């Protein structure tokens, strides 16, 4: 194993040496360099749901179904699906002539092997939890039998979270994080230099899905008009911007508000406001005093000025919105919103006096991402006004998440919910099912979610979601601070870039 | 014309008009082939005189006035770099402490060779051969194998021989040796002095030998200069100094030589010590220690008066006169 990997590493090294750095200006195609904050933990799409990984892996791999511009599941590697009358068997018809990067054609065997692998080691097992069996019906047909009816099955199979990417069967036979990066996507993997960059190049034999005329979310017609794309990892914000301004990179994945404002005035750059991109959520621990007390939780909500919270952490790219779906969603409603963004200290003190809070220090944990620390800092200052003493514990993500996944050691924990609102209300709810985020199961939430997943009726779903949102406020399960977005900046040489969940590099051209 | 003519040399510490002097108004001449011994206690300015002539004074000591004329040229006139050109070639010096005067991490051959190459323009091979000759000349056995030695591998006497070889390398007209044997064993001292005398006689260069050992003076000198507290107390040829010392200080020095006929039971020492720099009395600097001091001694510095054809003394009452005066009282 290690011998082969050594060989592989050597081959990569050789490749780098031979290929070298392509000059920025070329007759056609060219190379786009994207400045990202950090590198991916893995390029094995099944084993990570980190956003940094997704940004890259969704260029290399594809799924049977994928989310379109409106986050709805549409066919990608599949031509379509037929669902049996009992709603339990999904038969996917595969597109013919789809090639893996190793030249092999994709068949049902690869699909079965990949889904089986995901069931075994995929990091979001909930996505495939309903599956009973997966089988090849013919070389181009795969049947998936479910244990129970699931309204969100296609949502799951098309989820970009930790995508159920289709690998060649022989790769799918390998363990977690041990595969070679071979997919069917429009780009193929060239090299990964940790802490430096990942380079992908145009997959020459890629056949865009003939069912589509144009780019559509993560599906649609994926036509590659450039030769290469490199994701370069630059942790320092100033250095990322400087790289853009010096022409070393053409796209910056995210810049801060003041930088965006400045670059917007410069015609050499296009600033894309990707808003909303995620929820900013302050999780509340119902298993630990005093946040186990609903009146205390309500006091916290009442004390906060969400405009202040959002404007400090995500200046110029936020929405003060308390809905538990994005505002443009069909599920958007105003249930419970009278309790959102009250910013009333008197009311907060009233709730507090009804609570069991006795002046103890409460713990706010956060990872060291600046906006998250900012939010903790603002909350701390606000709560000080009503006499609640907050201790902020900043640690790195592994430590913080370790604490945050347990019932003790924290009262508040803030971070973004990115993929959940993108995937839709079902996924948002699932975060609170069984006390997942709040550490104590809320029977009302669990009931609503169960009914939601079982029904196929849209009107019923909307009604259930409204109940969910009302419950989120009435029991103050968690505090949604608002929505935040990303400023993505492209050089004016980059044409036809349309921002999405990931910086899609298909359909994009590079002016010389 | 004398080869070396030093005129009114004054060396001070620090800057400004009132900077205290360590050497004041020193003048003398030295001919080729002559040996001048400079004697005096520590602090008398012997070494300062050597360094001043060499142009090696280090901050904050500096030459305030006076000329140093070598072969008719005033070497003080051309500035530091011209002076530097003189060093090694015209002027050369051997220092008191052979243990520290050689570069500890440079091979002996190179320390000689660099003078030959950089000051005589020799090539590496010629310089090497010449270095061996020099080592042989200073009577170092197995000279060629010593070229690669480091100073710490040599004995003190050997090191001083190397120093002499270094000093002789560029065949100087004037060699200044500052107490070259003080740090050595008595037996070695004699060898080194013999060597110096031989070389001096052979090459005809002038030798300025600084010492506090009057035995050495008797052995080596043609001329003697007695320094006290930075001033010349007495200057004379060697016979005169020993026969008719005229400055009370010279007398005291001579009296302090332990001699066999004094029985060794009484060692004459001079009471008191040389005044520190900047603490000099206004008049005769020896006045506070002088047994014959009178009031007028304290009024101003006594001039260096000619006492005989080969003797000058800076005393208001040189030996004979004092006696006469005392006799009259």
């Amino acid at each position: 194993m290690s011998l082969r990997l050594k060989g592989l590493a050597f081959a990569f090294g050789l490749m780098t040496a031979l290929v070298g750095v392509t000059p920025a200006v070329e007759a056609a195609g060219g190379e786009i360099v994207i400045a990202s904050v950090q590198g991916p933990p893995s390029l094995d799409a099944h084993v990570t749901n980190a956003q940094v990984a997704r940004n890259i892996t969704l260029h290399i791999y594809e799924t049977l179904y994928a989310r379109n511009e409106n986050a709805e599941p549409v066919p990608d590697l599949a031509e379509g699906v037929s669902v049996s009358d009992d709603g339990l068997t999904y038969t996917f018809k595969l597109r013919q002539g789809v090639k893996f990067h190793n030249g092999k054609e994709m068949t049902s065997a690869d699909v079965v092997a990949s889904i089986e692998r995901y069931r075994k080691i995929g990091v979001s097992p909930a996505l495939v939890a309903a599956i009973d069996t997966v089988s090849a019906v013919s070389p181009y047909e795969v049947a998936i039998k479910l244990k129970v009816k699931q309204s969100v099955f296609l949502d799951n199979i098309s989820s970009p979270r930790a995508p159920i990417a289709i690998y060649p069967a022989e790769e799918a036979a390998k363990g977690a994080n041990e595969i070679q990066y071979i997919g069917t996507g429009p780009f193929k993997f060239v090299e990964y230099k940790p802490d430096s960059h990942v380079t992908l190049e145009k997959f020459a034999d890629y056949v865009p899905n003939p069912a589509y005329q144009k780019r559509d979310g993560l599906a649609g017609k994926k036509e590659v008009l450039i030769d290469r794309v490199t994701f370069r990892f630059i942790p320092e914000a100033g250095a990322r911007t400087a790289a853009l301004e010096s022409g070393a990179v053409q796209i910056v994945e995210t810049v801060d508000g003041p930088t965006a404002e400045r670059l917007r005035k410069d015609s050499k750059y296009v600033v894309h406001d990707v808003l909303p991109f995620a929820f900013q959520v302050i999780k509340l621990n119902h298993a630990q005093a005093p946040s186990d007390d609903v009146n205390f939780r309500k006091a916290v909500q009442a004390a906060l000025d969400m405009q202040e919270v959002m404007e400090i952490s995500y200046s110029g790219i936020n929405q003060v919105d308390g809905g538990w779906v994005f505002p443009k969603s069909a599920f958007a409603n105003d249930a419970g919103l009278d309790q959102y963004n009250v910013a009333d200290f008197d009311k907060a003190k009233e709730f507090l006096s009804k609570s069991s809070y006795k002046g103890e220090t409460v713990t706010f944990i956060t990872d060291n991402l600046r906006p998250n620390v900012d939010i903790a800092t603002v909350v701390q200052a606000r709560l000080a006004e009503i006499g609640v003493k907050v201790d902020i514990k900043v640690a790195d993500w592994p430590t913080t998440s370790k604490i945050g996944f347990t019932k003790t050691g924290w009262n508040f924990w803030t971070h973004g919910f990115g993929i959940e609102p993108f995937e839709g209300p079902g996924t948002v709810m699932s975060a609170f099912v069984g006390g997942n985020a709040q550490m104590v199961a809320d029977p009302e939430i669990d009931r609503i979610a169960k009914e939601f997943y079982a029904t196929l009726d849209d009107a019923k779903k909307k009604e259930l979601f409204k109940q969910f949102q009302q419950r989120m406020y009435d029991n103050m399960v968690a505090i949604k601070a608002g929505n935040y977005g990303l400023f993505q900046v492209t050089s004016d040489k980059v044409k036809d870039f349309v921002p999405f969940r990931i910086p899609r590099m298909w359909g994009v051209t590079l002016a010389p | 014309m004398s080869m070396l003519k030093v005129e009114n040399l004054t060396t001070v510490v620090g800057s400004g008009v009132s900077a205290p002097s360590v050497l004041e108004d020193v003048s003398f001449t030295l001919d080729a082939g002559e040996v001048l011994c400079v004697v005096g206690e520590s602090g008398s300015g012997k070494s300062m005189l050597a360094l001043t002539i060499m142009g090696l004074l280090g901050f904050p000591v500096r030459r305030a006035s006076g000329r140093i004329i070598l072969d008719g040229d005033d070497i003080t006139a051309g500035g530091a770099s011209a002076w530097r050109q003189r060093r090694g070639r015209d002027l050369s010096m051997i220092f008191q402490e052979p243990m520290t005067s050689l570069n500890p991490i440079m091979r002996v051959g190179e320390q000689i060779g660099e003078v030959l190459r950089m000051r005589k323009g020799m090539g590496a091979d010629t310089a090497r051969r010449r270095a061996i000759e020099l080592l042989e000349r200073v009577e170092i056995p197995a000279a060629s194998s010593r070229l690669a030695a480091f100073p710490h591998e040599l004995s003190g006497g050997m090191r001083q021989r190397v120093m002499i070889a270094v000093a002789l390398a560029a065949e100087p007209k004037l060699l200044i040796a500052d107490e070259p044997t003080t740090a050595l064993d008595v037996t070695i001292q004699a060898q080194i002095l013999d060597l110096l005398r031989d070389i001096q006689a052979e090459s005809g260069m002038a030798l300025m030998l600084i010492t506090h050992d009057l035995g050495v003076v008797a052995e080596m000198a043609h001329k003697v200069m007695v320094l006290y507290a930075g001033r010349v107390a007495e200057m004379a040829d060697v016979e005169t100094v020993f026969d008719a010392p005229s400055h009370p200080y010279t007398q005291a020095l001579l009296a302090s030589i332990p001699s066999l006929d004094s029985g060794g039971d009484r060692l004459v020492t001079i009471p008191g010590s040389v005044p520190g720099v900047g603490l000099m009395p206004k008049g005769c600097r020896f006045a506070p220690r002088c047994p014959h001091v009178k009031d007028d001694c304290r009024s101003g510095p006594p001039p260096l008066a000619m006492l005989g054809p080969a003797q000058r003394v800076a005393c208001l009452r040189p030996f004979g006169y004092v006696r006469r005066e005392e006799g009259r009282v």
Partner: protein
Amino acid sequence: MSSLDTNLAHEALPERQSPFLLFARRLLGNRAFVIGGSLFLIVLVLAVFADQIAPFKPNANNFRARLEAPSAMHWFGTDHFGRDILSRAIHGGRLSLFIGLSVVLFTGVFGTLIGAASGYFRRLDNILMRIMDALMAFPAILLAITVAATLGASVQNVILALGIATTPHTARIVRASVLVVREMEFVEAARALGASHMRILFRHILANAMAPLIVRLTYVFASAILAEALLSYIGVGPPPPAATFGGIIANGRDFMVEAPWVTLFPGLIILIVVLGLNLLGDGLRDVLDPRIRV
């Protein structure tokens, strides 16, 4: 303070002044000490009287006045919380100096104990020094980052991390002094008179190891302030809303181009404090023990 003692003896005779006065006079005659001391004193006074001096509350957010450029109202501008940077910097001195001082105490106590034990009790020497070697070989800054990043950023952890990182070198310095002193005659004499180990160690040996130790600790103070800034910058310094010099810089790192004042001014203050401490150290070194270098 062997050299100090001899120096004092040398000068005290004619002047007949108390050793302390003489020592103070020599320090005040040292330019590096005076300049460094003044710089440090200014920052110290600002820190101690921060509540009285700072024009604003250091943690008062005002998102409508975020990232304002320096003005008559906000001399150093504001950060992205709309907090007055001058006020934060003044208060920041308090925590940064506290951390620096605590690290000095930590390394002073442990460095002295370990160094003294190692130098005096020969049997302990090998094992203690091997441990110190290992600690020294362990890259100090990585050690500090590891401790602070993973145990959670807190003032105590920062002090602990920097204390551990600076102790081995201090111990070595103390050990070296002890090794020299323990062979000296007066120690032999004390031993012959039957003084106990502890008494010999503390009364005789350590007193003589003080000079290099004090100088070393001054530099430890300086480097602790630099290191605290670095840890805060990496995101593992004291948690918010605590203002430390490094923390303020870290707050501005994302707006370096647009709001350079957020990083510029606190950085300059660090520079001044560290410069002051280094000068102070130079001055102490010159006066206490001219033999020590750098």
